[in-house]
């Protein structure tokens, strides 16, 4: 009744190619953006922003990055944590060497550094596929973290090997460092996510995205119709690593404030991969939903016993949380192997027929 396309005619190519062709979708997205920009920063307290929303936004960006590579181009990667680390350490090096460069520009520059590293580790993808490629990217994960731990130059030789976000401003407002308020950091993370999600959405609908999907679905056939695997695969690695690199920079500078290599260990790579799988491979929306699930549900489960006034020892609470969370992952994968993105689609279709399903 509410969600119908009847009467919405597309009279130009531009309209036909819009990201959100249905008016209701456009309103819905606009509403979300208004709430995210106009309401959340004013009503959410610091705990919500700092511990819940900022990590969600950052992981969503990383998940989009991995989804471009794994979901769209079909190249399985376990090096996400390492590429995020490259972004973070590059930001640290650039901003401590050239404090006058705007920090947001530095984030993007670090993205390019990460893209370069991603291309190097993407080269094996030309010869090896599937699980074997995953193992090759695993090498990136371990090698890069080992390098950052071993070579003092990357952390300016400070005795503990941690990188700390120095205070940095944008338009006179603190955006990084301890003085930056959670609201500002939230808004910047949100803006990065919105811009890069939109870019990614357009990327996958265009020539590049189609060539990725062609490679994913059948690389021999793709080659025959004129798609060059070398450039296409390496571009996927580059763009994916760019996203992860920016996410990694935000991870340290907008969220944690300081980090050592351990913050980017293999579990981060797994976590982002789970987000992509649970959210839905080959879907930008799915990446965001998957990130929401993996980052928000454990926090909710941790706080749940206190909400219903159920006193519980902390260790028992943690164990129960892990059991329930693991169970939920299995449950969702059985119910809908294609992820949240597919669930969303089903919901939309149901909504079309509501309230008179046939």
């Amino acid at each position, binding site marked *: 009744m509410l969600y119908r396309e009847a009467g919405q005619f597309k009279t130009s190519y531009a309209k036909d190619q819009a990201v959100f062709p249905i008016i209701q979708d456009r309103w819905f997205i606009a509403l979300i953006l208004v709430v995210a920009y106009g309401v959340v920063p004013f009503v959410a307290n610091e705990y919500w922003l700092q511990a819940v929303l900022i990590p969600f936004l950052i992981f969503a960006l990383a998940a989009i990055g991995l989804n471009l590579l794994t979901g769209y181009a079909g190249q399985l990667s376990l090096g996400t944590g390492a590429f995020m680390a490259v972004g973070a350490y590059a930001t640290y090096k650039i901003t401590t060497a050239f404090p006058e460069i705007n920090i947001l520009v530095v984030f993007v520059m670090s993205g390019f550094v990460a893209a370069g590293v991603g291309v190097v580790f993407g080269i094996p993808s030309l010869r090896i596929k599937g699980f074997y490629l995953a193992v090759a990217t695993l090498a990136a994960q371990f090698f890069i973290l080992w390098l950052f731990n071993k070579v003092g130059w990357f952390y300016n030789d400070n005795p503990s090997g941690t990188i700390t976000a120095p205070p940095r401003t944008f338009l006179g407002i603190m955006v990084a*460092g301890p003085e930056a308020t959670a609201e500002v950091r939230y808004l910047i993370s949100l803006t990065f996510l919105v811009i890069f999600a939109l870019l990614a959405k357009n990327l996958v609908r265009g020539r590049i995205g189609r060539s990725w999907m062609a490679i994913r679905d059948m690389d021999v056939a793709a080659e025959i119709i004129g798609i060059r695997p070398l450039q296409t695969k390496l571009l996927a690695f580059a763009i994916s690593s760019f996203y992860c690199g920016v996410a990694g920079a935000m991870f340290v500078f907008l969220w944690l404030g300081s980090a050592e290599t351990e913050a980017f260990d293999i579990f981060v790579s797994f976590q982002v991969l789970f987000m992509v799988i649970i959210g839905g491979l080959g879907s930008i929306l799915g990446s965001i939903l998957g990130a929401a699930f993996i980052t928000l549900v454990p926090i909710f489960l941790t706080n749940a016993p206190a909400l219903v006034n159920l006193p519980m020892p902390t260790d028992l609470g943690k164990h129960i949380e892990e059991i329930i969370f693991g169970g939920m992952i299995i449950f969702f994968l059985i119910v809908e192997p294609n992820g949240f993105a597919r669930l969303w689609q089903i919901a939309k279709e149901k909504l079309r027929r509501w309230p008179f399903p046939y």
Partner: protein
Amino acid sequence: MKFRHLLLATLAVAVGVTGVFAAKVAAAAEQFIPMLVYRTGPYAPSGIPVANGFRDYYTLVNKRDGGINGVKVTFEECETKYNTKLGVECYEKLKNKGSTGASLVNPFSTGITYQLIPKAPVDKIPILSMGYGRTAAADGRVFKWIFNFPTTYWSQASAFIKYVSRKEGGWDKLEGVKIAHVYHNSAYGKEANPTLKVLAKKYGFKLTLLAVDHPGQEQKATWLQIRRLKPKWIFMSGWGVMNSVAIKEAAAINYPMDHFVGNWWSGTDADVIPAGDGAIGYTSTAFHDAGIGFKVHDDIIKYIYGGDLAKAKENNIGEVLYNRTLVNAMFGIEAIRTAMGKFGNKPMTGEQVRWGLENLDITEARLKELGMEGFTKPIKVSCADHETMGPLRIQQWDGKKWSFISDWIKPMREVVRPMIEKAAAAYAKEQNITPRAC
């Protein structure tokens, strides 16, 4: 379809309930202390006695003394799994609880301490990282909100070398002696390295640094290297499961255990017991006594466990880390009491507790009143020196209990303090902090 309905219902409930828990509950006049604990994961062997120690001491203060000068202590645990990301979430969750917010935070993790150091001046919550965290924080001019007394990793490393020189028969005998540092490959484990390097240059001993990756369950490669290298002394900076694995490995290669010295985080009962008889002779540093021979323990058994010693033992009473936590909790409580001496007997804010920490002066007489006479050393903190560079002793495991095998060893102030000031100045420059005058 039924599945899907269930799923939608679950999600709806989840979203609904999540919205509620941001609501704040007004608290009575109580002194709130957040507890970041890790009772699960690979660091639980170290984390459990720590968590129990804090809990028992705070409970004791309430039950025996009726709170701090009449103000009840409240606390809440939050599980971090020794993970820095979860630590930050816990900190954010707990920092505004209680009538005056968190009065001070004991992260009990060097990684989490590093995360919280920049936040402390902004949130106005002091950090008491007792014997861990960032060594440079000993310079109170730069790190106004951070306290790491009674002593730091760097001081400890210098005291260890002093101990070795005594055992070897003098400073000149150190020339050419092989010393290995087996460390947790993280900010924590690396802390001692700069001091050891400086001292190696000064005294000519041959230092080898051997990193063990998180969480430290797999150390075969490290111990193979040690077998080849045959260092005369091994110093270890380990934590959690890494410690017991290392001690087992050392026993397996028949390394002389009395030449294997753990730092104070690598010498608790849970570290040596799994290695069985192999651990006999293993030594570690400490700045307080082990066992339950003190009045404070009697009080805990009496007031908390109702005289049930077995139950108290189940809760780790008398273990090294438990005892250390008692010292830690006592420092925190006494700092709050010191602050009350100036600001009145009401719940203290973080800012007032910071003053209390900086003006903390625990004398021998005060220790006696607290039932801790001879348990640890008196301490006097100052504005410039947040560390006090307290002395430490070497304790040895005989298969049943720990006992001291050295007297109190003073760290080498002349070596360590200039390094601390240099590192603090570098941090101040990077973070645009103007050091305050003291």
